[in-house]
Structures are given as structure tokens and as C-alpha cells.
């Protein structure tokens, strides 16, 4: 199997063709609307939060893609975890993520969410975001510029258009126990109340 960026692109496109054929028109329409109207939770968790305002201003104008910042997790679809994430912030991030309504996606900015980045040996940051929350789209760069962020959004749009089954929120729902265990191991007694019942009868 080829490695590298192009190989990944081809696999995505082929997968897209295979899924498109299996889904009905209604599901495709729904996926289309979800892709074209993305509400981002205005919650700057780390150092990358400074990159988000420029994307909304006139130079980069992300609103063309249908992305609007909203204040409450209830209305949000997308949660951007920008940069390093200390346990204190992570507790709020998890709570907000759980209060968002499905389908919801997470964009991880920078390498800190992948493997801890330059804080790899720090005592108070988490090294791998994916242990605690299912990340849908990574945008690397030690703080990616707005263009990279927009590129991330475009990619996410394509993924949403695919309406594929291993979207983050489905993964979170299916193996909630795994995530929950990681969270409890990290927070110990101060873990937020579990969100178990919300998933009952969802799938």
C-alpha cells in the first residue's frame, strides 16, 4: 500500500464512491446540509484559539463555508480543540462535547493533540486527545495558520458528506466505556457525571 498524503486522498475518494452508491437520496441530502452549515463552539481551549478569530474576519471569511461561531454546546456541531490541553481544560471540553447534540465532530489543532507535541514531557497536559475524545480531523502545524484551518474544515465537510459510519460521535457512543475509563483514570474523583443514559436507544 502506498504511503503518504496522496494515497490517503485516493482511498478517501474510492471510499466516497462506494458509500455514495449505498446511501439513499434523502441521506445524501441530509449529509449535504450538515456539511454546508457547521456551527463551531466558540470555546478556545488552548494556544491555537488565537487562530480562529482571523478565520472569521474579512481576509479569510470562513462564513462562506457556512461556518458560524455559537456560544452554547447545545447549538454547536463542531468542537475545535486548539493546541495543548491540560486536564483542567479537558474536563470542560468533555462536558461541552457531551452536551453537544449528535452529529458532532472534533477538530484537533496542532501536534499537541496528536502526541503531546512540544509538551510531550509536561506533567500537566494530556498527551493523546484521542484517548479521551474521538477526534475526526487533525490539522497539524505548531499552530496551523487560518488557511490550514480552512483546509481542515473543507476536509471535514467532505467527510461529513460521506456520512460514514465511523464518525467520531458514533465511535464515542459505541465504545463509551473505553473513553469513560480513560477519563476516570485521569480525573479520579472529580470526573463529571457520566452521560450514559443519553446514548441509550440512540442507534
Amino acid at each position: 500500500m502506498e504511503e503518504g498524503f496522496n494515497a490517503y486522498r485516493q482511498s478517501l475518494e474510492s471510499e466516497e464512491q462506494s458509500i455514495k452508491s449505498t446511501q439513499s437520496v434523502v441521506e445524501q441530502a441530509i449529509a449535504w446540509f450538515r456539511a454546508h452549515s457547521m456551527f463551531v463552539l466558540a470555546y478556545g481551549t488552548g494556544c491555537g484559539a488565537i487562530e480562529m478569530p482571523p478565520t472569521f474576519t474579512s481576509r479569510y471569511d470562513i462564513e462562506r463555508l457556512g461556518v458560524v461561531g455559537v456560544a452554547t454546546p447545545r447549538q454547536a456541531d463542531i468542537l475545535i480543540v486548539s493546541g495543548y490541553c491540560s486536564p483542567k481544560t479537558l474536563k470542560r471540553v468533555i462536558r461541552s462535547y457531551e452536551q453537544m447534540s449528535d452529529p458532532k465532530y472534533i477538530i484537533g489543532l496542532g501536534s499537541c493533540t496528536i502526541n503531546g507535541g512540544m509538551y510531550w514531557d509536561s506533567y500537566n497536559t494530556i498527551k493523546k486527545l484521542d484517548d479521551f475524545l474521538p477526534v475526526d480531523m487533525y490539522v497539524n502545524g505548531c499552530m496551523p495558520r487560518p488557511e490550514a484551518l480552512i483546509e481542515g474544515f473543507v476536509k471535514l465537510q467532505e467527510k461529513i458528506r460521506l456520512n460514514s459510519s465511523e464518525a467520531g460521535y458514533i465511535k464515542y457512543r459505541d465504545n463509551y466505556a473505553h473513553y469513560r475509563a480513560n477519563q476516570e483514570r485521569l480525573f479520579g474523583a472529580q470526573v463529571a457525571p457520566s452521560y450514559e443514559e443519553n446514548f441509550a436507544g440512540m442507534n
Partner: protein
Amino acid sequence: MVLIDCFLMLLLAYGFGFLYYGLYRNLSARVHGRFGPSLAQSFFDSVKLFVKEQSTTFGWMFYAGPIIMATGAVLNVLFIPFINHGDSLQGLSSSANLIVVLYLMVLGPLGNALGVGSNGNPFGVMGITRGLTRLIALELPFYLAVIGVMIDAGSADFSAIFEAQSQEMNLLKHPLLFMAAFISFLGFMGKSPFDVVGAPQEVYSGPATEFSGKFFALLLSQSAMFSFAKLLLMVNLFLGGADDLGDLVLKTFVLFVAATFIGSVYARFSTIQSVEFLMRIPTLLGIVGLALL
């Protein structure tokens, strides 16, 4: 026949509502020097919210609140005639008059307030309180203007108001009244100087804090239809009502553009500032306008 008429009016209101809302986002984007979303972006947003998998509810009152709100907006649309003569697109306006419509506009906020109150989120109630306090001051100049219009027309029925404006629009006959009404119309539309109610940062987007999924969608679509109804009311009262659909679109568009541009230029008033401003200049305009009736 009336049912089809009503259904058509609702469709028009829904369409124009979202069109104007998209227009608003586009125009203010252009003012900011950027392209802004497509015209139908608000429509896409509401549909996306409608098709969301999950939306949290806080008991039957929270469920009923937005519905009452939407009903209020729909009733407003139905009871205001679109065309100022003939019997098409009149809706149910024959069995109501201007005073009924004025007080129907309060029904929407009540539904919203009940819904928001029932979910127990303190930010929601802070938004509602701001809204109601602002409502007190908003209605004063608007009522002064409306009273002037009704006295000039000699009746509260829309037909009489149209007939009184047959020669000359109220805008020209009573400019002061129009100015007072227009300033408070800005407030009713929730445009920038007076949009303290749903300020995202201060009160966590105010009343809409706990609205998720389909409830938020219902909120958006009813506010679109409600703003179109208010546009319509201003047109009927001051611009002589629409002769036909084209005239309707033109007049509402002109009025809407004026509101948008004023909105996108001004920073946000705090509740106290907006109440004190509205109680001074627009009220003065209204009183002087009434005196010159």
C-alpha cells in the same frame, strides 16, 4: 379559498424571511469587506438543525414554549394583509385589526419566555429579562406612531389605513411618526444597536441557551417569519401597503436594506442605554408627530 391564501402567505413569509436573513448576512459581510455566505445559508442552517440526530428537551413546557412562539409569529403573518386591495393574500386580516396585531406581537415573546423559564438555565432568564425591559421602551415610540396612524385613518382596520394612504403615503404625510416607528422597528428586528437580548458572549446567547436541534431550528424559522411580518406591518402602516407582489418585494427590500445598513454600522447598546435612548429621542419624535397630526 382562505386556507390556500393562508398557506401561500406562510410560504411567502418563510421564503422571504430566510431570503432577507441571508441577505442581511451577505450585506453586513459586504460592509465588513468580505463575501459572506450564500443567500440561502440561513435556510441551510435551519434545515441542518431540523435534521440533527438529537435535541435535548426539559419537560413538556420547554417543548410547548417554542411552539407557542412559532404560533405567535405565524398568527402575526396571517393577520397582516400582504396586498392593500382585492381579496388575494389577505389571510385572516378581515377578522382582526391593527390593535389586535400589535398585541399579538407580544404572544411570541411570552411563548419564548415560558419555554426558556422552564429549562432552569439562569442565562436564559437573564436574556428574557433584558428582552422584556427593552420591550417596554421599544413599544412607547411605536405605539405613539401607530396611534397617529390610526387617528389619521379614523379606524384601526387595515383597509381604512390603506384607504387613508391612497393619495399620499404616511411616510410623507407624517415623517416624524415614521422616524419614531422606524427606530423602534430596528429594535423589534433585533438589529445591531438593540440586539442586547441574545448577546452570545454576555448572556451565553440569551434565551436561546438551551435550544438545541429542532427547537433552535424552530426558533430561527419563526424569527425569520416574524421579522418579515414586522417588515410587512411597517410597509402597510407607512408605505401605503403593497399594490402587488412586486411592489411588496420592492418596499420590503428597501426598508430591509435601510435597517441592515444602520444595524451593521452601530455598536451594541446595553439594556439601560437602549431603554433610555428609546425613551428620549424617538418618544419625543412621536409626541411631536402626534401634536402635528
